């Protein structure tokens, strides 16, 4: 059996950014314009591939497609697996990356060397983490994406970033150690690293080793919860995200979702019905942690004065909502959570970008930027004449800049707080109805008591309210209070990604029905992982029956 080019599509999201990053490293430290073109082309190609993979996962002949790297059969070699959840995350990654990249082209990509290489490596790590079906391989991709994110966080330099970067790196290095301990424990007890294989073996583990598996899973969980920004492991998050340059922060708003993705995938795969006595033991914990995170994010949002920190706490609220929804362990709630994930990630990305444009006319923000550019020997005019036609020092300015900023701000605020009519409302509505109406559903393992449903309901509503309050406060201060200040001049390339993300939110709202259908299918497959296990374990080698019996 030979593979057609179509079957190799799955490895493209990992190999393409790796090659492009390598090529850009060979190009040396200059030639930013050529690198920018390469980066945009590669990211566009990734988006196209991700959409093709999404179609394949949704309507293809197999529910879960596996790709056997190096052609070893599943439990022995490293396999990649593609299902609806992975495909969704790939598309979301490509969209966010494209937005952040286009925005950075206005000026930020010149604030340091190797921005473009790091950006592509970050995409490689993200895509790999979403595609891999092997626990240790997941660790490797996590390290790749973290290493790139250290570089991106420090991009632009300055004392603030270095200080935040120091904490961020230390926290993540410790998290990686925990990750390794967890993986080692699971390997020691089950004898496998392939996720599908572990899922089968976990039910057969001897009672004396059960504690090892559960300890391993708990330690692994701590590592992922740190990455997902769950309380009490998230004190690093608001300062780092506030310190990061806006394009990097927009990409980082996706990084917490990687932690969430792994928790969702592993908790349902490893501790579903197959797990025997261990089944369902993580759900309850995830729910409690999620509720605590939601509370912390809500309080933090009320307390924060600075827009960057506020956005960081909005990320935490989003994580908390997702974690507590998954803790319910019901198909319909998970589906609503996935819808919320896409909608809130888009809004957060747009908000991180928008936040800088809003700060731009303030002297403090301008100073910071000037210092950064000066440090790299590029004052504004030098940076702009290099590749622009060079008539004005800001390039093409859009008219009615303040009106655009205000409208985008309102759109982001509506999505983040879950008010009608944008996609955030659809997401919150779906969450609230499914939490309260478990009708017509098969009872799932580990469903929490109804009281917790009411607690989550109250927290969701309160967090929405505080989001409105905080964002209104920021909005009034940014748009209404200053009088007679200069209109900020925005470039089309800065405005376009924000507008595109807002428009995508609107599309998601208009197309809510097909989207919910898709997410329902996704959630059903996640809660019944037999297809995943079968898909990964039964994939034949190329030329099967030959070399490796």
């Amino acid at each position: 059996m030979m593979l057609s080019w179509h079957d190799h599509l799955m490895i493209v999201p990992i190999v393409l950014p790796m090659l492009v990053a390598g090529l850009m490293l060979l190009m040396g430290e200059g030639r930013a314009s050529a690198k920018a073109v390469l980066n945009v082309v590669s990211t566009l190609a990734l988006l196209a591939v991700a959409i093709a993979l999404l179609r394949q996962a949704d309507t293809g002949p197999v529910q879960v497609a596996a790709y056997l790297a190096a052609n070893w059969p599943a439990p022995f070699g490293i396999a990649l697996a593609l299902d609806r959840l992975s495909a969704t995350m790939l598309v979301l990654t490509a969209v966010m990356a494209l937005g952040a990249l286009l925005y950075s082209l206005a000026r930020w990509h010149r604030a340091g060397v190797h921005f473009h290489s790091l950006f592509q490596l970050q995409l490689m790590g993200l895509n790999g983490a979403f595609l891999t079906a092997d626990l240790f391989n997941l660790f490797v991709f996590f390290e790749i994406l973290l290493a790139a994110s250290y570089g991106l966080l420090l991009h632009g330099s300055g004392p603030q970033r270095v200080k935040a970067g120091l904490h961020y790196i230390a926290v993540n290095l410790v998290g990686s150690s925990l990750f390794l301990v967890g993986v080692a424990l699971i390997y020691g007890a089950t004898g496998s690293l392939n996720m599908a294989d572990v899922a089968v073996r976990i039910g057969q583990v001897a009672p004396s080793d059960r504690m090892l598996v559960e300890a391993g899973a708990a330690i692994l969980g701590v590592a992922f919860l740190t990455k997902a920004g769950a309380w009490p492991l998230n004190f690093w998050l608001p300062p780092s995200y506030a310190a990061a340059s806006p394009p990097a922060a927009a990409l980082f708003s996706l990084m917490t979702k990687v932690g969430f993705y792994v928790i969702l995938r592993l908790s349902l795969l490893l501790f579903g019905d197959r797990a025997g006595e261990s089944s369902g033991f993580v759900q309850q914990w995830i729910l409690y942690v999620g509720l605590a995170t939601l509370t912390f994010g809500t309080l933090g949002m009320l307390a924060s004065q600075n827009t960057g920190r506020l956005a960081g706490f909005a990320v935490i609220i989003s994580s908390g909502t997702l974690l507590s929804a998954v803790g319910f362990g019901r198909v319909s709630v998970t589906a609503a959570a996935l819808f919320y994930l896409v909608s809130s990630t888009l809004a957060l990305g747009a908000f991180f970008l928008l936040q800088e444009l809003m700060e731009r006319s303030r002297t403090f923000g301008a100073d910071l930027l000037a210092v950064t550019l000066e440090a790299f020997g590029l004052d504004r005019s030098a940076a702009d004449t290099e590749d622009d036609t060079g008539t004005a020092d800001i390039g093409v300015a859009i008219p009615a800049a303040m009106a655009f900023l205000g409208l985008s701000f309102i759109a982001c605020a509506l999505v983040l707080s879950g008010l009608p009519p944008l996609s955030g409302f659809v997401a919150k509505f779906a969450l609230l109805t499914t939490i309260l109406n478990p009708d017509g559903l098969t009872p799932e393992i580990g469903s929490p008591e109804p009281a917790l449903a009411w607690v989550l309901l109250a927290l969701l509503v309160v967090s929405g309210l505080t989001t409105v309050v905080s964002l209104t406060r920021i909005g009034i201060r940014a748009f209404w209070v200053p009088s007679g200040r200069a209109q900020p001049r925005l470039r089309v390339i800065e405005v376009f990604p924000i507008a595109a993300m807002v428009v995508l939110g609107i599309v998601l709202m208009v197309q809510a029905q097909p989207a919910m259908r898709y997410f329902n299918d996704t959630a059903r497959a996640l809660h019944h992982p037999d297809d995943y296990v079968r898909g990964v374990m039964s994939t034949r080698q190329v030329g099967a029956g030959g070399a490796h019996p």
Partner: protein
Amino acid sequence: MEVIIALAIGVLGGSGIWLLLRPRTFQVIMGISLVSYAVNLFIFSMGRLSLDQTPILRSSRASEVADYADPLPQALVLTAIVIGFAMTALFLVVLLASRGLSGTDHVDGREGE
């Protein structure tokens, strides 16, 4: 042998965590290194401890699986060591940058009271 390995992991991990919580960046990086040594030893011991056993199959030796060491944890440790090295080097650069920018080696960039 089990006791020695367990003690080694415990001592390395314990001192690593203590150093990690100290206020100086140099202590933090030493702590991270010690913790990663502990983790590497731990991964290694998860392949079961044995003496005088090769991980590579040989036709001249016995064909029982129990007569061989588990090769997978050894490969994992190798990967983990390489990644750990890279991350420590990167952390060292950030540490020096922080020292240069803030003029102090305190992790918060300023001396605490």
